[in-house]
């Protein structure tokens, strides 16, 4: 089979023919139509982008192509022969491999074991040889330029970015014909490694499907794009022919996608700061001092692993500082948790980083999820009904432009964008005057982003204070009045006004452009 596949690959490469062609794919879960009618075709040796809002059906399409889910209708061809994978391994047998967004690595196994599963090198007697496994893993890691990763290290002990790289490398290894990358840059701050590996793969004649929310990345590496909306493929376009505006319009329909609003700073310098950190230290953080004033939106920028995670956890009381002080409304507070934060002074509400594992409570309705922190306020002598919850959640949901009809749904059934809206509605609904938002628009679509930005701005205009971290610089430039850049566990620089530009931020994030960063290759 491999010889014919390679012959085909050769002929295919010369013609630029299709590797994978799918048409009319449909998938329903009970009454829910996850995918209505999707067509997609990948060209050998090219990177093809899949674009769409959250809930547009991208994940379902990826799962079908990857073999994890079987379609109810539709046809798929791989190199001209019918392709109907019944499992992930079946797809892998046809040289189709996928790197999943939520990572499919087993945390308590080693890097090498994860790489080689389900077949590990055996000694006589059927026992697995730990040494041979490790050596094979080391070779693979070297092949994909990940030499600094120890093949015998337990995956769970590695930083998220390394785990993502391993997930991608494993897919690269198994992708003889088709490589599917679902949000491969979600935890990667820079793309040079990834793009280099993709280039090597396409040179072999592999067709790549690339799913990302970051249009600039997509433009950099993809030639063609298919846009999904509401479970159907809307169009397949050459990216060189389509402007950002065109693509946004295809993704969201008629809505205007990008509106830049320059905010008049209404920061009240005279009043005491809502939140003040004084020489705050943690295990990853040294001597962080800042003030957050009423009406101010303060951004935090930094490459991965600069202590931003810990900064927010310290401020929310989820981690204990090794030194320094947190003051709320001018009074020192010993933060013991998000509940304490909510009750300190004028209140601090926290939006955690990981929506699925730290944010939403799946199984409970969206309304319950929204009103949970302020439930005692809306209850009638500690009793509460779903009706009361929905009523109270409605006001908060309106502030983030979240449709009312979703409130009675199990939040786990909502799209990522609506989940995020619900979580932001929750922080707004608490009545807290300070918001700590960690990556508030992470992994959400353009439309949701705009609603979230609008809600944050309105909150600040009304005198609220916001501290937010974002991995996307345009977001910081658009939204923040002021920005702190974390580098080397410290606040490296701060920018305000005209100085707050993407170029300046990038320079500061790299420590003034000096390229002396630790292990990972840095752009």
């Amino acid at each position, binding site marked *: 089979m491999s010889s014919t596949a390679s012959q085909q690959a050769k002929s295919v490469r010369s013609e630029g023919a299709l590797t994978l062609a799918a048409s009319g794919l449909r998938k*329903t*879960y*009970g*009454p*829910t*139509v996850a995918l*209505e*009618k999707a*067509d997609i075709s990948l060209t050998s040796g090219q990177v093809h982008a899949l674009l769409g809002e959250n809930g547009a059906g991208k994940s379902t399409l990826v799962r079908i192509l990857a073999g994890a889910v079987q379609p109810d209708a539709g046809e798929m061809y791989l190199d001209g022969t019918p392709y109907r994978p019944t499992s992930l391994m079946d797809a892998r047998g046809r040289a189709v491999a996928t790197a999943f967004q939520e990572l499919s690595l087993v945390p308590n196994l080693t890097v090498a074991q994860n790489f080689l599963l389900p077949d590990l090198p055996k000694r006589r007697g059927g026992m697995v040889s730990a040494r041979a496994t490790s050596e094979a893993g080391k070779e693979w890691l070297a092949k994909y330029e990940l030499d600094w990763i120890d093949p015998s290290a337990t995956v769970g002990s590695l930083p998220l970015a390394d785990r993502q790289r391993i997930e991608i490398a494993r897919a690269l290894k198994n992708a003889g014909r088709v490589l599917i990358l679902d949000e491969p840059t979600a935890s990667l701050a820079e793309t040079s490694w990834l793009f280099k590996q993709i280039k090597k793969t396409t040179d072999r004649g592999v067709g790549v499907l690339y799913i990302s929310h970051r249009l600039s990345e997509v433009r950099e590496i993809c030639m063609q794009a298919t846009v999904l*909306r*509401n*479970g*159907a*493929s*809307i*169009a*397949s376009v050459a990216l060189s022919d389509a402007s950002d505006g065109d693509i946004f319009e*295809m993704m969201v*329909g008629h809505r205007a996608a990008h509106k830049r609003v320059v905010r008049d700073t209404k920061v009240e310098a005279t009043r005491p700061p809502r939140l003040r950190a004084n020489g705050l230290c943690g295990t990853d953080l040294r001597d962080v001092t800042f003030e957050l004033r009423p009406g101010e939106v303060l951004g935090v920028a930094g490459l991965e692993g600069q202590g931003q995670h810990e900064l927010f956890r310290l401020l*929310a009381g*989820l981690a204990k500082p090794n030194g320094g002080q947190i003051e709320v409304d001018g009074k020192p507070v010993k933060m013991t*948790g*998000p*509940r304490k*934060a*909510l009750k300190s002074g004028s209140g601090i*509400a*926290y939006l*955690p980083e990981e929506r699925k*594992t*730290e*944010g*939403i*409570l*799946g*199984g*409970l309705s969206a309304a*319950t*999820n929204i009103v*949970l*922190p302020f*439930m*005692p306020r809306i*209850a009638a002598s*500690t*009793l*509460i*009904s779903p009706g009361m919850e929905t009523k109270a959640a409605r006001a908060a949901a309106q502030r983030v432009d979240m449709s009312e*009809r979703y409130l*009675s*749904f*199990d939040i786990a*059934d909502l799209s990522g964008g609506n989940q995020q809206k619900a979580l932001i509605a*929750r922080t707004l609904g*608490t009545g807290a005057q300070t918001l700590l938002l960690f990556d508030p628009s992470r992994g959400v679509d353009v439309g949701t982003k705009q609603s979230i930005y609008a809600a944050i701005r309105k909150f600040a205009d009304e005198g609220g204070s916001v501290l937010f971290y974002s991995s996307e610089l345009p977001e910081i430039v658009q939204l923040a009045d002021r920005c702190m850049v974390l580098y080397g566990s410290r606040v490296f620089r701060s920018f305000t006004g005209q100085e707050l530009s993407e170029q300046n931020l990038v320079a500061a994030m790299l420590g003034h452009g000096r390229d002396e960063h630790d292990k990972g290759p840095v752009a």
Partner: protein
Amino acid sequence: MTTSSKAPSSHPDFTKNADSRGSAKISRETISAISVAVLCLVLLFGARFINPALGSWSQVETVLILGFFLVVLSFGQGLVILTGGLDLSLPATITLGGILATSWAGTGDAAQWFILPAVLAVCGAVGLLSAIGVIWLRVPPFIMTMAMSIIVASALLGYTRGTPRGYAPDVAVALMKSDVLGLPTPIVALVIFVLTGWLFQSRSVFGRYIYAVGTNVDAARNAGVPVIATQTIPYVISAICGGFVGIALVGYSSGATLRMGDDYLLPSIAAVVIGGSSILGGRGTFLGTVGGALLLTVLGTIISALGLEFGLRTIVEGSIILIALLLLREELFQKLRSFGK
């Protein structure tokens, strides 16, 4: 390739489907509760065909009185399971309640009214110790409550020197053997208890906190839920429920034994599971649990009335739990929906 004109026509369909997804999810739990309730009634009145003595009103009364014990126990057990824990100390707290009630009543000098709150307070303290072990010492709930069970049982053995004495306090006898408005008091108490338990679990702020903590502790903490209190109180409630049942059992059978609680542990867990709760926490309703508890009680009554030998009775009981599990599993509901068309 597809053109953009096709999409808008499919849009309304898509949203409509998304809507029914929400309602289907809600109805799953309702389906479980209703099917368990229907099964109960069918069994209860269908049994008439096996033996005319079954299915009579007095039979129903017996089932409800016996069911009262299990409903109270599985309420506490259900709350603990909802937080993601498990209470294996129920046999010990039942026995603790029973033995303390009889021996304190036996001393004669203590005022009788005082016994009920005092016994429940002691049991609550046992629950508090379990909670401290689980939350502060981070002992797995399974191990912590099992250890508490061994400790309390052994302490009771020492306290009674192996032979429980005393007699049932008046308050216990009054609870189990009197009538209110022409109905036996335990049945009235059952109705009040089910109503209160439902309000607490499904319609109170604290109930919501329990669901939140059971679903995801980290997310609940981030949402400002008082996590420690929410994890602690179910253990205390469960222990108090155990103690209360101990007192009630003493009132029902007029005496306490050192093993009086042993037969209630597995049924209390089974009732919660049959009622459609997830043993991993975060999902389940009290009404489902009540259905599960009554179903188990009905079964026990019918099986013993059939005159089967003990071993066969046990096999039938286990098989019916298994059948209930097979019928109520989530997979089946999903399959019915996806293959139904």
